[in-house]
């Protein structure tokens, strides 16, 4: 790993002031550090935000669950409050990577990285999440913009993610047996206003599958998806799965998710 200057910030103001075009914020480091070791990324300054207390913790109100950016996957997985309000969100967290990754990795880090196969982005899309940064609030559908791309500006820091509590929801994924990243994952959430189907792993960026969402909004049952056709156009194709296979898996896992709601 190439050397860098390590800074530990105590508050958001200090952290964002240190940020430059050649810096990165460090939360759990589960992607940033391996990427730097593999030579995929290098920075002059690493700004550790782990000690900023304001960024940690879980708050549940009547309609929302708000999770601080540096809250670890294990904390979300084991939180009784999250389990009660949105149990699918805690089981999603429980299925990320492995126990050691869950002991360090954070929700803010996961969504800032926007890996096309990561779990949390699908939750943000399905659960109408609002991403709170140090300067604004962005809805999830405007936050994830492409492969490893988000609408975050340089030096902008995620503070928390606010999820809307659904009537029903479930996340089902076909995990890569080695990494447990989703080969395909579908997060279905039902609200009074309609249904969302956040799909991860299938395309270069997480998306809300409108065909599935519309069919489920009319009839929330897995049989409503029987005649839906999912196009393989734009789907990822790699050593793990072809585009056609992924397209089929999107439908299958959407049905599984509905059945498990």
């Amino acid at each position, binding site marked *: 790993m190439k*050397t860098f200057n390590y800074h530990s910030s105590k508050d958001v103001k200090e952290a964002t002031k240190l940020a430059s075009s050649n810096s990165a914020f460090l939360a759990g480091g589960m992607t940033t550090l391996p990427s730097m070791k593999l030579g995929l990324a290098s920075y002059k300054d690493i700004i550790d935000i782990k000690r900023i207390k304001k960024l940690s913790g879980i708050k549940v109100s009547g309609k929302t669950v708000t999770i601080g950016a540096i809250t670890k996957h294990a904390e979300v997985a084991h939180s009784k409050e999250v389990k009660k309000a949105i149990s699918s969100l805690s089981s999603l967290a429980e299925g990320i990577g492995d126990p050691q990754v869950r002991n*360090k990795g954070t929700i803010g880090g996961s969504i800032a990285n926007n890996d096309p196969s990561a779990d949390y982005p699908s939750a943000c899309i399905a659960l109408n999440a609002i991403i709170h940064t140090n300067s604004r609030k962005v809805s999830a559908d405007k936050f994830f913009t492409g492969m490893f791309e988000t609408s975050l500006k340089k030096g902008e820091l995620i503070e928390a993610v606010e999820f809307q509590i659904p009537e029903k929801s479930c996340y089902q994924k076909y995990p890569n047996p080695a990494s447990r990243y989703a080969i395909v994952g579908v997060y279905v959430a039902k609200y009074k206003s309609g249904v969302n189907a956040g799909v991860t792993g299938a395309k270069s960026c997480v998306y809300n599958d409108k065909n599935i969402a519309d069919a489920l909004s009319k009839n929330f049952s897995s049989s409503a998806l029987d005649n839906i056709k999912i196009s393989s156009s734009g789907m990822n194709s790699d050593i793990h799965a072809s585009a056609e296979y992924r397209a089929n898996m999107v439908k299958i896992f959407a049905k599984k998710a509905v059945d498990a709601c």
Partner: protein
Amino acid sequence: MKKVNLEVNGKKVSKEVADHTVLSVFLREVLNLTGTHVGCDTSQCGACVVHVDGKSIKSCTALAADLDGSKVTTIEGLVTNGKMHPMQEAFKKQHGLQCGFCTPGMVMSAIDLLNHKKNPTDKEIRDWLEGNICRCTGYQNIVAAVKEAASKM
């Protein structure tokens, strides 16, 4: 350079290290605690698992500077008065290792599991050890070792 203060296996240490020093390097090269192994060096294989403030993490993917003030336990810290930890005893008795490269990480990870769950099922043990790769044993005896340790801890 950054000054890093840690408590490692009950002993306070304070060392000046380069900013990009990861915990596995700090343990092996600065403190000479070579029981913690480095396999993939990118947090996939689990050979480098240690406990930080009571929780298992992969020491290859944690900056020493980031952990300033923490308590670290490595495989060397498990022995008390020359006696092996029940998990180590169980790995020995059940042949939970062959080449031994993955063993320090396996043992540290399995202890963290038993700290959470007193009597895990085979499935829970296998799920928990997702992040620890063994290329010798086929895991069967590792699971048997964790079960035996669970009955004794």
